[in-house]
């Protein structure tokens, strides 16, 4: 009986929390179908006085949205795939291989988690600008523009990431040592052990990192802002600035466009939800 009451209370609490979490999204949807007159009226109303779905058409007809979506999808897909590959291999090496300086290297990687991104942004920009033999640069990284104004410039900084390495390492630490022994007896080397044994068992953690990386890359604003200068390189986040000027924000159009650009993220989360929860749980348990 007690258990039942507790479960009911828990359900109610979850419902309240869900409403609380969904409220901003609900406000976004409501604002996206309001008129500006309605938004700026002295009294705030939840229900729009007039529902204007045309806001969506107006928002999407401004600028080259197919291009902006194409850019964001391209950058996100490549970043997620590359980072999954690199982080999983690195995490595996830190968790399962014994080599000199492993722990020191891991601590160095962890330091990356503690430095705010704003601090590393300028040095990173200069590194990418002076990258040798790219974008007209000489071997000394001079003379050209390196990775500035290129997709690679937007992708590379997000490919590596201490968080992903940490996540994979924690996950792989859970595996019993006997698994490696069995693989070795079966004649598998380190690489094959990773590919045939570890990777197939890592679906939850791959899904978790994929979801997190997708969100991070898709919603990034500052880095694409400083690394690109051209309209045809704009990502969806940069394109959102079209709906504001120095003094005014067209909230209805901005919210309509925001609703549209959050859809891919929602789809990714819905697809990865099962594994995502599993991944969060398993990576937190030390074996």
């Amino acid at each position, binding site marked *: 009986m007690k258990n039942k009451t507790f479960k009911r209370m828990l359900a109610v609490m979850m419902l309240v929390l869900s409403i609380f979490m969904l409220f901003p999204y609900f406000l976004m949807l409501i604002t996206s179908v309001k*008129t*500006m*007159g309605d938004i*700026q*009226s*002295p009294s705030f109303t939840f229900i729009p006085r007039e529902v204007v779905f045309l806001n969506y058409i107006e928002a999407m007809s*401004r600028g080259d949205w197919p291009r902006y979506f194409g850019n964001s999808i*391209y950058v996100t*897909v*490549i970043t997620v*795939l*590359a980072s*999954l*590959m690199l982080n999983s291999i690195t995490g595996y090496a830190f968790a399962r291989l014994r080599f000199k300086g492993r722990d020191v290297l891991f601590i160095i990687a962890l330091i990356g988690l503690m430095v705010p991104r704003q601090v590393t942004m*300028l040095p990173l*920009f*200069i590194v990418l*600008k002076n990258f040798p033999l*790219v*974008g*007209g640069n000489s071997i000394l990284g001079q*003379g*050209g*523009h390196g*990775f*500035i*104004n*290129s*997709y*690679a410039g*937007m*992708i590379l900084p997000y490919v590596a990431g201490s968080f992903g390495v940490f996540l994979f390492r924690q996950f792989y630490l859970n595996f019993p040592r006997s698994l490696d022994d069995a693989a070795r007896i079966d004649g598998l080397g380190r690489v094959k052990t990773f*590919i*045939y044994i570890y*990777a*197939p068992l890592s679906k939850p953690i791959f899904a978790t990192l994929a979801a997190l990386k997708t969100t991070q890359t898709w919603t990034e604003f*500052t880095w694409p*802002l*400083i690394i690109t*200068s*051209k*309209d*045809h390189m704009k990502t969806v986040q*940069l394109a959102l*600035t*079209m709906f*504001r*000027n*120095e*003094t*005014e*924000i*067209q909230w209805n159009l901005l919210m309509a466009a925001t609703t549209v650009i959050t859809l891919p993220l929602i789809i990714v989360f819905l697809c990865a939800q099962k594994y995502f929860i599993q991944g969060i749980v398993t990576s937190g348990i030390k074996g």
Partner: protein
Amino acid sequence: MFFRAISLSICMVLLMGALIGCGTPASDHRDETPKEAETVVDKNKDDVTITFWVPGADEANDTYFTNVAKEFETLNPRIKVETTVLPPSGHDINKKLATAMLSDDYPDVFSSYLGIFRARSPKGEFYDMTEYINKWSDKEDIFEGALNMGTYKGAFYGLAFFPAPEIGVYRKDYFEEAGLEPEQPPTTWEELAEYARKLVQRDNKGIVTRAGLDIPLMNTAIFVRTMMKQNGSPVVDEEKGEPSFTDEGAVETLDFIAKLAQEKVNIPFDYQKKVEIPFVKGNSAMSYLQTSQIAQMIVNDPSMKEKIGFIPVMERKKKVSFCGYRLFTIGAKTQYPDEAWRLIEFMMTKEQMMERSKQLNIPVVRKSLKEEFITLNPELHKTILEYVEYGKGAEAVPWVSSLTKKLDIAFQEAYNGKKSSVQALKDAEENLRKDLEKKK
């Protein structure tokens, strides 16, 4: 087998991504090394590409500046203009400029906000345009105030083309409700305060439901500074490059505003967040707004055209208004100053200036276009030009943001009764001088 296939496809995608991603569009002149670019110019002096950065606003603004660059290209076939529409926020623009400066990627022509111009011109980021402007035959036709906006230490580093005055506005219908004459706006400080007291509406708990006058309680400095100047305070001694706001006029001003705010004739808001200004939401009877905000209010509710009236520029000891600007500048490291100037010259022609007025509601800065501009919308444009004429922008010192912060603190201290206005300003000036000394 399955994972081998997955791994292979991932590798293929990554390889393709790397190949496509590393490449930049063929049309990108930045792919050329400067050495190559110079060779192109040397061989054929006529073929150059210049970059033009302009802050975004609305669709009309972005389209105009993109198209005008194309029009310029048609008239000057040897010059290609690569236009970049920046996000409108000054914060984002500063980030882009900082990285562009470090990477020698600064635009050849940049349409700068006055605040950005004031902060960056002392750092040597802009090209000295004095020679070009002095030789320019139309120089005499430009308003003196607008011309002066582009100077730093006697040299021209920018050319103002877009005045953005903050105009005094009032609601005629609210005036009528309060028993005031709707066609007679306040003309003195005393009238402004008296009208604010009459116009304010409160509920039975004493909470202001409609402000009599918009007095910002956060980021108040611009509001305070303009009134200090109206009261004869220099605020900054620009010749000496020193703060100067402890005089009688400045103290009286701070006292006046702080006491009026203490009477609660206003609804608190942040002056930086223009979208939150109570007047825009119909929650205030008097305010100071930019022309774009007034235009947007009329678009949102056409009846506002009849309801909004304009307050003339206030005068106590001097007639002063706040007028922000945008200026055309040339990047200090440009390889093509002649071409950059030619683009600016084109933008400043009478035709383009009038076109901007018609399409984007941007006030003119040419004396010869004054009448034509007024005929477009007599009541509003006459007021706009008065505000432009008496307009003062941000002070021409590199430490303008520190000044703003110190004045904000002084206002807070006076408003909260923590210090008297005299003491608050004395402390603010002393702290500012200390900060400047440290920087030296």
